[in-house]
């Protein structure tokens, strides 16, 4: 047997030795970003002319997939107390099935009947072929007002309705000064105002880190070369342009970690709250420290994981001991919003929680299987990447708005602390409400929850 296997293995090696490599038959720009071929004037004209149709196409996709109405949960606001939290399941069901019927079907049956809700599939970028960072209007306006820096692209705009994005500007909680509460003064931290907002609250090293996190550096779409998507030459973008006030404004991007372009998945900006307890970083890279992440983002979030393009457009390579360490320290000071009903071990305090929230906690730890990955006593993290294998429910290879429907593979567990502050949900923002996440996982994990159990899970997550 062993000999036969050995013979087999050597046969398998043959093609590798005999043939040319895979790359010899592929076009030269399947991995590296190609050099632009058209002049910027022509690109601008073309992109600007196509923009309304591009935005309409995305709006059509969103309204086909989701109920986009502004329907907040009565009395529930995000942590700053200003923005209501949207309620209800917003992913539309395919014709002729209910959620319970779907939950009763096998993955094969769902694939065969083609009834996996489209809102559970990858959410495409507004313009997959160009990709890149897209900021919501609130961020664009505020940066324009404070810094006279333009974050508006000529080819695309932000696509989700404002009521499905986080509170803006978001409150800022410091784990080093829990006594202070929100220190944001209701303002957006920028390179113009950060010192007066944070003076006395942070150390000199943290302040310098903050300054760097707010300093714009060239980026793939926002730079000074002809290969850009912004009207004038741009100083670039700052880390906190997406991670506004160390949280998120739902700005999105394409993952830097996948090729070719049409296979890349959308990334919804993740919150930096609770960074001190997060040990893996990046959508696919699983970097083991926020220092690594901060350093490498200058070529990944900024340049799509293409260090050659970064070099061309003016890359910022922060010095590891003197700059990266300070940027990382500042990020590690950011706390979750207060959760007064949680005890130190991450469980609900029965004296403070409602019956429904307590019922939700039970489902979370039991039938719902949520706590398998979102471990309550570890800030609802398990420091792992997991593959949900959603491709069990659909056929791969279809093209939707220039993006290919493909398996996503393993994605890291995100924290659920302060989760009501962070719509939209999942790594690409494909789910708009917490009720959507419950339906998604109910189907994907096959937990067969009742409506009352689903409702209690949502109530529980609102208390985190």
């Amino acid at each position: 047997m062993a000999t036969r296997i050995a013979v087999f293995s050597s046969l398998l090696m043959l093609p590798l030795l005999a043939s040319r490599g895979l790359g010899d038959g592929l076009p030269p720009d399947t991995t590296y970003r190609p050099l632009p071929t058209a002049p910027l004037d022509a690109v601008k004209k073309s992109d600007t002319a196509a923009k309304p149709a591009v935005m309409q196409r995305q709006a059509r996709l969103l309204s086909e997939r989701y109920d986009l109405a502004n329907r907040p949960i009565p009395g529930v606001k995000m942590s700053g107390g200003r923005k209501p939290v949207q309620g209800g399941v917003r992913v539309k069901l395919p014709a002729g099935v209910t959620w319970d019927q779907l939950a009763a079907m096998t993955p094969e049956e769902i694939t065969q009947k083609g009834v996996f809700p489209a809102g559970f599939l990858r959410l495409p970028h507004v313009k997959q072929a160009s990709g890149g960072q897209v900021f919501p209007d609130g961020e664009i306006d505020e940066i324009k007002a404070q810094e006279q820096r333009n974050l508006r692209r000529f080819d695309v705009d932000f696509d989700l309705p404002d009521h499905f994005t986080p509170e803006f500007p978001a409150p800022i909680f410091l784990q080093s000064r829990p006594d202070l509460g929100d220190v944001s003064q209701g303002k957006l931290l920028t390179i113009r105002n950060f010192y007066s907002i944070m003076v006395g609250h942070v150390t000199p090293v943290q302040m310098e880190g903050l300054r760097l996190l707010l300093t714009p550096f060239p980026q793939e779409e926002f730079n000074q070369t002809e290969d850009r998507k912004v009207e004038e030459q741009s100083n670039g973008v700052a880390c906190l342009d997406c991670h506004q006030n160390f949280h998120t404004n739902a700005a999105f991007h394409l993952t830097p970690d996948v090729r070719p372009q049409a296979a890349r998945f959308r990334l919804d900006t993740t919150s930096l709250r609770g960074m001190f307890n997060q040990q893996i970083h990046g959508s696919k890279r699983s970097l083991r420290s926020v220092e690594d992440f901060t350093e490498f983002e200058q070529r990944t979030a900024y340049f799509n994981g293409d260090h050659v393009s970064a070099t061309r457009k003016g890359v910022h390579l922060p010095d590891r001991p003197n700059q990266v360490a300070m940027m990382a320290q500042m990020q590690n000071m950011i706390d979750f919003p207060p959760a007064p009903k949680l005890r130190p071990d991450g469980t609900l305090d029965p004296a403070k929680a409602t019956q429904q929230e307590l019922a939700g906690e039970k489902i979370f730890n039991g039938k719902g299987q949520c706590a398998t990955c979102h471990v309550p006593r570890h800030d609802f993290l398990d420091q792992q990447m997991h593959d949900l294998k959603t491709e069990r429910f659909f056929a791969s290879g279809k093209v939707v708005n220039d993006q290919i429907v493909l398996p996503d593979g393993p994605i890291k567990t995100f924290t659920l602390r302060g989760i009501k502050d962070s719509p939209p949900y999942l790594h690409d923002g494909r789910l708009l409400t917490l009720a959507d996440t419950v339906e998604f996982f109910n189907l994907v994990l096959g937990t067969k929850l009742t409506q009352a159990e689903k409702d209690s899970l949502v109530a529980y997550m609102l208390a985190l």
Partner: protein
Amino acid sequence: MLRLKTMLIPLGMMTAMITASHAADPPPPPALPDYTNPGFANPDTPGLLDGKPAGNVPNTVDINFLKQLAIGSQAEVALGKLARDRGPDPIKGFGKRMVDDHSAANSKLVSLARSAHVELPDKPDAKHEAVQRELSSLQGSAFSMRYLASQIEDHQEAAQLLMHEIGSGQHGGVRQFAAQTLPVVMQHLEHARALQEQLMKEGAPARD
């Protein structure tokens, strides 16, 4: 052998399922690649400045794609015939599938290339000729393993080519062809991987 047959059922079902779902309800309009990044367009493309690059003018990506895919797809037919005629049982079926599917794809490719004024290569490249020579000297499971290894590599390459065309091509018809072909190529790849896995598990010639 039994195990192999059991394993193959889901794949067979999948094809049946796809056919069935088309039969059950009216097919949804095919989702097509629509927009490209004009930064990478040929500057003389008609309609470029209006944001509607002419759908019938190929860019470099389209041209490369048509030529490279034609090389691979022609080879799939040639190698598929070898497998159909000389391979052991499950390989025969796979070979026949390659001959049928790739012959159909090739005739589409020829007419697309004509409309895009791209000249296609008319014979396989050196790599595939070498594989073909090698296969002619092999039999039984050695033949199967070598054939499947080449098929996996070829279909990985084809999937990459198709995905690249979908993201960066410009010619409407060619991008549409790529979008329609990709799911089929991904099924071929899955099929070949499943067959290979099964043969590896058996670890021995099934029959000669």
